[in-house]
């Protein structure tokens, strides 16, 4: 985005939120990859999700006091519903995995 000159010259607070979202996404992505504990991975996924929503809502903001575009907000709400159900499923799977294998990490790769 930084290379797009016309836009950088007109950075609004909304773009600041969007950039914040990108930063948050990178941080959460790092945790998602590095941490082995499944709960941390699930939390990192949630933060990544929230950061994507921040980007969506941030880019939707309008500059001069006009009403913001409602469509991205509808997308964010749908995204939150998806994220909540995905988190629920992930947590249940994690607990089942702990009950059957006694571990809270993913099994090692099977040679591939």
């Amino acid at each position, binding site marked *: *985005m930084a*290379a*797009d000159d016309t836009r950088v010259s007109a950075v609004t607070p909304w773009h600041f939120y969007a950039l914040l979202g990108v930063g948050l*996404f990178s941080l959460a992505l790092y945790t*998602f990859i590095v941490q082995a504990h*499944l709960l941390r*991975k699930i939390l990192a*996924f949630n933060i*990544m*999700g929230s950061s*994507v929503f921040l*980007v*969506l809502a941030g*880019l*939707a903001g309008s500059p001069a006091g006009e009403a913001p*575009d409602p*469509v*991205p907000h509808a*997308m964010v709400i*749908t*995204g939150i519903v*998806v994220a909540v*159900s*995905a988190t629920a*499923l*992930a947590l249940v*799977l*994690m607990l*089942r*995995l702990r009950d*059957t*294998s006694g571990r809270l990490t*993913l*099994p090692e*790769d*099977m*040679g*591939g």
Partner: protein
Amino acid sequence: MVREAMLQYADIALILVPLAGALLSFVLPRAVSLIGIASAVGITFCALGLTETLLTNGVRQHLVGGWGAPLGIELRADGLSTLMLLMTAVVGLGISLYARVWFRSEANKAIWFWPLWLLLWTALNALFLAADLFNLYVTLELLGLSATGLTALAGSAAALGGAMRYLLVSLFGSLLYLLGIALIYHQCGNVDIALVAECLSPTSPSWAALALIVSGLVLKTALFPFHFWLPPAHASAPAPVSALLSALVIKATFYLLLRLWLDLFSPLAPQLDSLLGLLGAAAVLWGSLLALRQVRLKLLIAYSTVAQIGYLFIAFPLASVGMSAWNGALYLALSHALAKASMFMAAGNLMRHAGHDRIRELDLVAQRLPLSVTAFALAGMSIMGLPPSGGFVAKWWLLESALQQGMWSLAIVLVVGGILAAAYVFRVVGFAFTESPVTHEACPIPRAMEWIALVLALGSLLLGVFVQPPLEVLAVGTPLAGGN
């Protein structure tokens, strides 16, 4: 009267029938398999009806509730979508019939299998019909969540681990895709594919969106080196689930990638197709080599899927000139769907019969389950690309366009991949004829399970004989299939 109504609402019925079936089977656990089979038959009729209207009236568009592009949900069925819907219907019907027999002895799993499978089918059909990027995101998530539930169905530690890994990969891939959509929406103020196609330009936000969406989908399609999650998930699930994951779910994200590539991305990034082709070639070689090394049959078949996904991506650089490489890739997707479903079913039969799936201890299974071994061998013909199979036609087209463009390295990969596939298929067939030192208590297998595997394998061979009908469907409203 009924027929006309069915033809008119075939597209919406393709989503509503499996959805209604899923909800009903969830509420009525006693009648699950009946509801499941009824829905599968209904979906097959709808898919055939849709094909008929497509061939007579051309591309179909349906505005759900009468709302148009920027706000409403639009369903669109062109030749590519319809071909995918047909593939899903045929293979899905086969898998449903197989699952009915398979889960007879595991009634406690059947009550979870059917709602999840019908929900997954809903997601697949909706994905093939969706015409805007955000609905595609929703269908992707529905697909991922229901596929995760099915992967975990076996309940063993291996299955749960595979499901967990699959869920995390799938969610991460979807988030990358959604981030890409956020950038596209910011640029175009729209998510309708046709409208977005007019507004994307070779600028950095478009490139960022392209990179995010393509990497998300490549991750979900398990292209090398992102295939790590596929073998544990596909190999630890019950046989009908392995079949539907390997045959159908992988194809959905490939379809989406191909659709976006054709409509949006191909003018934006001329170099990316070589990278995808390179990864595809690596997948063919690496997947085939690992398939050769496997001790367990289901893992061998899962690694064979990794290799076959590679062929689909080899088409990207080949299709930069002419369209016949796309026909090859799509034909491979079709014949692989039939052949791989059949292989996993045959493997399921062998596993039920002997209680294990170690290749070295197959123990004269060719004499005990001749139909299953025949199904495996016939499906293997399509996987390795021997004539007269669908896999042969597909690889022939790919090879032809590789030679026409002088891309010798890809042509060599295509040939070597076929030889490696022959090696791993014959390795299994060979051990099916030999007696193993360890003998096992054998368990009888219902004949229906063997026949269904055989019929699907024959289907993948028939694709090699009847080449024109799929191409006719494919040509409606798409730039594809014109080359042949």
